[in-house]
């Protein structure tokens, strides 16, 4: 019998293992989403009935008279600002750095490439403590920049790797052709390299934005009374008042993430792939 095709028991096994894994990954998220629609004011599962009351509650928390007290809107804004700044900084550093890494040969080049993997194995708690010590020793108030810096250090490898992959797909002869047609090195970079890297850059930005927006550990070490990211807000709320409104906020966070992914996909996904000759 052939060893290539997967038959009978084998395929059933693989199928069910896959299904179980997917269920395990999706179950907590599904529970959060389902619970956010509960009609009850307890955490009873499955919910006795469904309603949008907790979304209404969140709406009041965000816009009502108590908005400044609940600080929900403020936390959301802070998280978006941190995520956007982090993504911006990472791209700003990654585009030129990846270009140097891919196009030039210099001593220590491979060491730099290896180092890019390091922050991922570096525990966030350790980095959080280290940065906290640095901040308190310096005695300076960095505001939200201390979280941005921590996130940028941690997530830089993601934009770096996206940019490196994107650049490796840009034929150096296209740059040379531009130069023989009279383009300066800078014009060549702006007119040829950047547009061809666009999709890679966009996905790097997206990834870092989402990672930063959802990040908890570093934020926990570095948040202040004025800089209170959404992930910390959610943690605080779940510790104090356990109302289903938290599920509604969590579900909204998930929808926000998905929304961003779909938007980026709509912008770069299609046009970005259109000029790749099949």
């Amino acid at each position, binding site marked *: 019998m052939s060893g290539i095709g997967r038959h009978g028991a084998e395929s059933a096994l693989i199928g069910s293992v896959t299904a179980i894994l997917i269920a395990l990954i999706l179950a907590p998220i599904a529970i959060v989403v389902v619970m956010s629609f509960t009609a009850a004011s307890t955490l009873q599962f499955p919910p006795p009935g469904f309603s949008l009351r907790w979304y209404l509650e969140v709406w009041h928390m965000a816009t009502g008279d108590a908005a400044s007290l609940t600080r929900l809107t403020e936390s959301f804004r802070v998280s978006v600002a941190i995520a956007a700044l982090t993504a911006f900084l990472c791209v700003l550093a990654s585009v030129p750095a990846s270009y140097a890494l891919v196009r030039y040969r210099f001593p220590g080049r491979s060491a730099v490439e290896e180092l890019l993997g390091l922050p991922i194995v570096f525990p966030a708690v350790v980095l959080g403590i280290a940065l906290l010590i640095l901040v308190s020793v310096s005695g300076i108030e960095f505001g939200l920049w201390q979280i941005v810096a921590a996130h940028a250090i941690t997530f830089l490898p993601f934009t770096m790797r996206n940019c490196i992959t994107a650049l490796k797909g840009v*034929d150096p*002869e296209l740059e*040379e*052709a531009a*130069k023989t*047609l*009279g383009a300066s090195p800078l014009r060549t970079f702006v*007119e040829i390299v950047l547009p061809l890297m666009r999709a890679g850059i966009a996905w790097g930005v997206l990834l870092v934005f989402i990672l930063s927006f959802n990040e908890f550990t570093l934020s926990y070490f570095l948040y202040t009374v004025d800089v209170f990211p959404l992930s910390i807000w959610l943690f605080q709320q779940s510790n104090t008042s356990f109302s289903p409104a938290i599920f509604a906020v969590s579900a909204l966070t998930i929808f926000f993430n998905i929304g961003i992914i779909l938007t980026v996909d709509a912008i770069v996904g299609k046009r970005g792939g259109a000029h790749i000759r099949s």
Partner: protein
Amino acid sequence: MTEKDNALELGDVKCHFAQGKVRAVDGVSLSVPRGEILSILGPSGCGKTTLMRMIAGLETPTQGYIRIHGRDVAGLTPQQRNVGLVFQSLAVFPHMTVEKNVAFGLRMRNVASETIRAKVRDVLELVQLPPANFAARWPNELSGGQLQRVALARTLVTQPALVLFDEPMAALDRRLRDYMAVELRAIQKKMGIAAVYVTHDQQTASTMSDRIAVMSGGKVLQVGPPPDIYNAPANRFVAEFVGDANILTVGKVLSVDGDISEVEVEAGCRLRVKACEHLTKGGKIIFRPGQTQVDVADPGGGMQAKLVSVSFNSGFYHWQMELPDGTSLSAGSTRDYLASASTGQSVWVSVDPEHTRVVEA
């Protein structure tokens, strides 16, 4: 002719890679007069692309000088050289439409946008890509031949001082390639731009160019008009590279009678050849199959050989023969001289001494 009349002048140009271990270009001296098209013909890896890259400023010569219209270009960036290069890979920008691709060079020169539009339209007409159909197309919507014309138009529209073509038609089929070669030559002559055309295909080289430079191992072996290269190859490599050749080795010179000598070749037969300085033992006698006669009976002075195979191709009969020692010879003609012969039988091979050439081994 003064130096100023040359669009391009190369003086002992070398390019070595890997600390001199790879001698990609190893001492090339050439000149291309204004308006001329010179083909560089050579096998894969002989340094053609490297030579083009040095002229365009994409590679730095290890040694030697490059002058473009009399000006030494050492130290000038590609941007400052005004040399057009059509890449082997074409390198058409995938994220720009045909129009944007062609406009690129003009845009980099800060030409006014109305002028750009007019020039792009003109050049697209010139390469037979009607702007109405093609201007708005994306490169992935074009055929290989059309892409090649975009690359061509993109380079020509900037009216460079010199255009270099690095085998841009290698990917095309024979017919389209021949057609494009004729067309390209017409465009080049019309615009009056000096050009260097790289190829490893001798037929394209002959169709395209005023002169051919045959390259091998980083060196130029011979430069001359196509008929000279074909009829008077400088050595065995050139003879074999620019067409089929019958090659026999001189064994002993028997007699010299003015211009003509009789020699005994190593294969054992006698042959009358045109005398020259290389006519010594070991010299190579070269003659073309098209100038080789075969007969079923000895016409006098023929070499007896065995007929091995007969074929007919594009209007030509082609006969393959073998001398008693195994050396193979071939002959071709539009007339079927050996209609009555069958393979395996003896035939007589002869050649007019005027059509022979002896080169050093």
